[in-house]
């Protein structure tokens, strides 16, 4: 029931949140805080949430990803959730949310 989020700046300041482990009710708050603080940072034009190494994602995780997309839009910052079809992406597809998770910011880029 562990979740770790490491961060990297790439591609012109875009913040990558590399998520590893299980996103569930007990860990979703960790991811939420990382997304919020990433979007809050003045010099971050957008964030990518990388779920490649996520082994489990439930509805609390989906809620956090959707909330992130909504606040990205409010702050006019780019937002992308990168999830492999076979892993965490499968639940995003079944839940009908994947296509709604990307947002192209209108900020400094």
């Amino acid at each position: 029931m562990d979740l770790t989020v490491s961060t990297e700046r790439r591609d012109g300041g875009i913040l990558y949140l590399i998520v590893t482990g299980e996103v569930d009710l007990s860990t979703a708050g960790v991811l939420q805080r990382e997304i919020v603080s990433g979007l809050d940072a003045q010099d971050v034009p957008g964030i990518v949430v990388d779920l490649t190494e996520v082994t489990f994602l439930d509805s609390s995780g989906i809620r956090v990803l959707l909330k992130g997309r909504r606040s990205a839009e409010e702050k006019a910052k780019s937002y992308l959730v990168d999830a492999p079809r076979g892993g965490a992406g499968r639940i995003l597809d079944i839940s009908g949310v994947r296509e709604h998770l990307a947002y192209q910011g209108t900020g400094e880029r």
Partner: protein
Amino acid sequence: MSTGQNASDSSEKLRRLQAVTDAALSHLDVEDLLVELLDRVREILDVDTATVLLLDPSGQQLVATAARGLEEEVRQGVRIPVGSGFAGRVAAGGQPVRIEHVDPTNVINPILLDKGIASMLGVPMIVAGRVIGVLHVGTLAPRRFSDDDTDLLQRVAGRISLATQARLASIDRATTVALQRSLLPGRLGAIEGIDAAARYVPGAEVGVGGDWYDLFALPSGHIGAVIGDVAGNGLNAAVIMGRMRSALRAYALESSDPADVLTRLDRKIQLFEPDAMATVIYAVLDPARKQATLSSAGHLPPALAEPGRPARLLDVPADLPLGAYPDTRRHAVEVPLTRDSLMFFYTDGLIERRTRPIDQGFELLVSALTPGPAERVCATIMSALIGDQTTNDDVAILALQTTTGS
């Protein structure tokens, strides 16, 4: 008095407080427990008043919850904004505050002035680093509270905080279970043309959550069936679930199109519960026309078992969950309902496991599903997918077997 004497004095006083925080008082509710503790506080600190204000769920206001010597604070429902007034400063700073001479410049609560309180000492109530309230004491005669007094009250507050938090948590759990039970009847009301059964099981990790099912006959002759999952757990999720359940019923009376019903429900949630999110399937069954119309807000697809055919997942494209983004377009699909076919709805707790991909969960479900009496189907599915394991997440299922038609 030497410091050493003071210390042993303090310890003796704390032991006297401890005597009332033990299990002997476990039957008391929070207010009664606090009143008992506050009597001891008055005695050991030799003060005239002792009051506990707890932070409300918004975290913005302190609510007078128990008081001795200042009972009117509780009776009048005193609320103090965090940051202002005496108690508000204690909560905002997370530090003790002493007032030697109470006057309108340092308190905002008129009761303190009317009562003629001369001096006050307040300390934060802290659990796991978080302020949950304020404990303050007061005297009618002017008094300069010492560092020892402050230290003792702080230690008392620590003990009271733990007792309060534990009691509040157990009351929350009991309330949540009672709420779930009242909203999710074990036996569904009889509806002509449908044999229905349902199960709800709390999760091992999350306890009672926001899963729900519902079934109702509509004046049009249609039957409404609902399965849903409010994100989160505990009392908050259960309360939001209760609101969604009754709002969905109300909209179901207004519209026979499930996509329209979910659109209205979504609009209501966006406005009144902006932090909530839920996945829902609403199905309108029309036994006369032998069809069902379904709309899904981000929920896992229902399954259909027809006589003589393998069971399958229904292709109900999921629109966004309720509460995700405003003005989401929603869709409905129609599914033929042959006689003696069984429609099965469930929440993610039934099939999602950390130990296997979700598609294996779907396979287990459809291979265990056959038409038959709804109670038996529920028992079979729970046995096949849950067995003797405990699930982390809560689980709700709803089985509907059509019984009419020719």
